[in-house]
């Protein structure tokens, strides 16, 4: 099918539907518009969460009080966690790029349930609104950390119910997205697109969808129990009434560990697309990439106890969870080897998305190895609750999903907007981001190893040097984020017009105009070639 330039057919931006003006966006059931609604919401909350993070680093640049008091600092790290986890990284790639590209990449004209898709965005907005409300009403913002551990979460005076309800609603939004994606992938693939001809980004969304469906309800019910504790004193997690706080942790992490796979699997899918396209080569070991994505989703369901090694679990539980944690690392490693093998003897096009992909592999591996260290019982005793953990999960989550999000944003920018971004500013932004990122988070490994606790407002003077370095990194990173985001927005107006297939990609989105027409495909595509059919 020949690539069209998009001048003949109106794009989805110009489509005239039932509604006008802003309503044409907030009442639209077009998956592409919904993807963009999510994009703007998520970028807004990402910048909010990043700003709070920067304020935290400014506070930590010296021992003692620097800019805020201890209670405010506790509220900061709580809000930072709630926003980044529930409002940015979990919806992140699926809600933005999944919504926009899943139907297109499987040759469909929308998702299975477009109205439920729009409902999931409204639930997202409701959820974040509740979280914002929790900051300004009641007896003060929540200060429990995003993990809402019992019994503090039902004893604190902080405004827990709106925050916990917000998280509940955000979880429901996630469930609806997963439901839609699973059904779409099962039922709406184009003729000829068998399961083994589906590209890896849709596959990653499929695995993610099952995790969203099967894990999220557990935190839903757990948060309802927390509300029942606060309001009814029901006693499930209250030791004075016979409850076990460790059971709260079990329930919380039974969701929140699979949740990190919700965050990382779509990221890995996007990275596979970027690496394949910019290496002009089929992904190495395509069936193993599929098997590993499904294996990560499956095994990842059973490792939650590694967040609880120092909580008081039995010895049997300790070594079972440690063993399973090591096992779940294996499929991730397979993916890394396959990405590198894809690049080997490929025709590498050193575009911005590719830089993000290579950076992803580097930081994801650091995050992954540090995860194995934390998964070792003896090491964990010393490292639990320290800055080492902070470094681990920022490398693997911000490094992983964050890098993939920005990579995907640049990779698919021409398709979504019909423009090219400015490459010089994009690469400069990446450089600042990368340097800032490494400077911000690397010292945390050392600080944690030396014993600096996390979620502490103050620290001993021996940690001062590492904190100065880390906080300077935060400022450089923040500048990099600013450059990247501003460049993407300015290029909307000033960027050169993009062709349908600027990178020479082989997946279906590159066969339609940039930006796509309202119905995606002017003729129903029929798939007769293998996936990633580079010669």
């Amino acid at each position, binding site marked *: 099918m020949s690539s069209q330039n998009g001048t003949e057919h109106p794009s989805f931006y110009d489509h005239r539907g039932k509604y006008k003006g802003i309503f044409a966006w907030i009442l639209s059931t077009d998956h592409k518009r919904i993807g963009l609604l999510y994009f703007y919401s998520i970028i807004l909350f990402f910048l909010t969460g990043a700003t709070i993070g920067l304020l935290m680093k400014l506070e930590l640049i010296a021992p003692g009080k620097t800019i805020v008091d201890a209670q405010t600092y506790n509220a900061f790290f709580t809000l930072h966690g709630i926003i980044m986890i529930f409002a940015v990284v979990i919806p992140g790639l699926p809600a933005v790029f999944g919504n926009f590209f899943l139907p297109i990449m499987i040759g469909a004209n929308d998702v299975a349930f477009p109205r439920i898709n729009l409902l999931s965005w409204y639930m997202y907005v409701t959820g974040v609104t509740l979280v914002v409300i929790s900051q300004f009403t009641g007896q003060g913002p929540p200060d429990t950390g995003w993990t809402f551990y019992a019994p503090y979460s039902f004893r604190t005076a902080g405004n827990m119910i709106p925050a916990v309800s917000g998280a509940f609603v955000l979880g429901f939004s996630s469930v609806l997205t997963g439901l839609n994606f699973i059904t779409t992938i099962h039922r709406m693939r184009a003729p000829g697109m068998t399961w083994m001809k589906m590209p890896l980004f849709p596959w990653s969304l499929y695995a993610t969808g099952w995790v969203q469906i099967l894990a999220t309800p557990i935190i839903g019910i757990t948060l309802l129990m927390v509300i029942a504790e606060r309001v009814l004193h029901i006693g499930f997690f209250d030791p004075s009434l016979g409850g076990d706080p460790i059971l709260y942790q079990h329930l919380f992490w039974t969701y929140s560990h699979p949740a990190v796979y919700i965050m990382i699997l779509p990221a890995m899918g996007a990275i596979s697309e970027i690496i394949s396209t910019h290496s002009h080569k089929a992904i190495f070991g395509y069936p193993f990439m599929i098997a590993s994505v499904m294996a990560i989703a499956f095994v990842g*369901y059973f490792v939650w106890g590694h967040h609880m090694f120092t909580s008081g*679990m039995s010895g049997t539980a300790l070594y079972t969870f440690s063993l399973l944690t090591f096992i779940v690392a294996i499929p991730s490693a397979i993916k890394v080897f396959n990405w590198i093998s894809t690049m080997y003897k490929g025709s590498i096009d050193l575009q911005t998305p590719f830089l993000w992909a290579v950076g992803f592999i580097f930081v994801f591996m650091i995050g992954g190895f540090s995860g194995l260290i934390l998964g070792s019982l003896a090491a964990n005793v010393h490292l639990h609750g320290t800055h080492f953990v902070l470094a681990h999960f920022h490398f693997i989550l911000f490094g992983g999903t964050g890098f993939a999000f920005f990579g995907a944003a640049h990779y698919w920018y021409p398709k979504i907007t019909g423009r090219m971004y400015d490459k010089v500013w994009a690469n400069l932004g990446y450089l600042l981001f990368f340097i800032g990122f490494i400077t911000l988070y690397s010292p945390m490994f050392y600080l944690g190893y030396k014993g600096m606790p996390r979620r502490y407002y103050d620290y001993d003077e021996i940690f001062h040097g590492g904190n100065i370095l880390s906080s300077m990194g935060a400022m450089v990173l923040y500048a990099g984020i600013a450059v990247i985001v501003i460049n993407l927005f300015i290029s909307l107006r000033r960027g050169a017009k993009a062709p349908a297939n600027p990178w020479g990609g082989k997946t279906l989105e590159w066969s339609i105009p940039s930006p796509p027409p309202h119905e995606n495909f002017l003729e129903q595509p029929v798939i007769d070639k293998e996936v990633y059919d580079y010669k």
Partner: protein
Amino acid sequence: MDISLPAFLSDHLKRIILMEKEQENITPYKTFIIVLAVLIGLTLTSVALTRIYLGAITAVAALVIAAVKSSFVLRIFMHLKTDKRMFSVLVIAVALLISTVITITFLDYLYR
């Protein structure tokens, strides 16, 4: 069919074939009544079992009966028996998942 029919005729034929296939799959009223009787019988049996002191086995017996009742509801009332096999596979997978999570959680509570 290797004769090419006019479009409206072949659509009509497809419609008849589809409707006939679907008529085969309508569960008769009698089946539901019989299954209901079985379910009520199992319910009353499980109540009667609590009268007899079975010790620790009481819990297991009650849950086994509940599982049997569920399989009737799933297979007959919810049509898993006549639907595509994928649905049954998924239901079993979800049941296994919940039991596995409970089992792993018990690795903590049993051995503290």
